[in-house]
């Protein structure tokens, strides 16, 4: 399966091998992976691995992309959003619009996470 090598929460806790979750939200699909719109340095952080570490209590941050071919995809993203990412996506001619969707951490996960930040 495709995993992010690490996922960094907004407050800095790092979790290894989080599955890359790509959802197609439109009837129209794309032949190529929607991850290709990310900078190469980001794409290199996703690789094939034969397992992952299950983690509950976090809804990972996501990027929702409206492509110019009318397809819409949503996928999780491994590090906090940045202005650089915003500019990169804004400059892509294959992207019509995009949304940054923030992560959500439940209390039980958060109180354990804080000791390890």
């Amino acid at each position, binding site marked *: 399966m495709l995993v992010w*090598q690490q996922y960094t929460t907004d407050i800095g*806790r790092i979790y*290894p091998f989080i599955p890359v979750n790509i959802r197609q939200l439109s009837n129209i699909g794309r032949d190529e992976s929607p991850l290709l719109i990310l900078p190469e340095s980001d794409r290199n952080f996703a690789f094939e691995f034969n397992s992952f*570490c299950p983690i*509950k209590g976090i809804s990972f941050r996501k990027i929702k992309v409206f492509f110019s071919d009318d397809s819409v995809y949503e996928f999780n993203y491994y590090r906090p959003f940045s202005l650089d990412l915003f500019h990169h996506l804004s400059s892509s001619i294959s992207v019509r619009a995009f949304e940054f969707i923030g992560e959500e951490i*439940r209390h039980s996960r958060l109180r*354990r996470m804080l000791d390890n930040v």
Partner: protein
Amino acid sequence: MPRRVETFSFITGVNAYITDFAEPITISRKVNFPPDVTETELNNIAVAVGATTIANTTPCPDDIVGASPRYLNFIRASGNTVSIPLGNRTNLITAATTIKGILDAEAGNNVVCIELVGEEFRNLNDIFGLTYSGTIFAKSHKAPDGSPKQFYISGTIAYSADAATTPGAGVVVPVKSITDVDGSPATQLGGEFTQCAGNLLSTISCSNGRRRIRKHRRYKLQFATKVDPTDVNEAPLTESIEVPVKDFTGSLINDCGGNLTSLDGLYCIGYQGESYKQIHNLL
């Protein structure tokens, strides 16, 4: 009459569930009761296992960290099973005795056997502060090149049991672990296998045929591995391995887990508590 479903809650600061590694947590579970169990009996069962039966939701449950509590399974003559979460393993025998007495009240449908199913935590990374960079790898526990078969280390260990008339009483249990070195624990575990499980004994455990009556508590580890951990071109794999934990005391179970997290390539640590199929013989 239909079966009845009741929520058993354990709430930190009130009546916490105490994990094997002595952490008080908040957790709740739905319990299915057969129709013959009355309201009073149900409440008495809750008291016996340290739970409350308050309605509505349990605040901030720790179920979110992948926790599954330990259970006592009461198997009745009819073949039905009543599964009750148990808040504290030191209370095991008392709780089992009380609940059996309650369920036996209906003539002809007595409890014929009682099993303990150990608690499970799928991911304790935050508890132990485990981090993993993704760039350091453990040595694979596959047999070295040229070896015709996979190696295992097996034998018995001196073990302090949850399921015993006196909690923590010593028994001998069999263990078996995959390894890359014939006759020794896997290289990826360093000296931690022996730290957690103790030395293998020369004693042979009691034979129960192929039936495993007691399954020891253990940590479940996932490593990112390579046959040659220094080879930058070799694709990493994941390997799972279990480490038995001989100690009963919560702080020692905790220490074992904490020491394991320093191992190279470890990226995920979980835990499974002891299971035992013959609690009824201890009452």
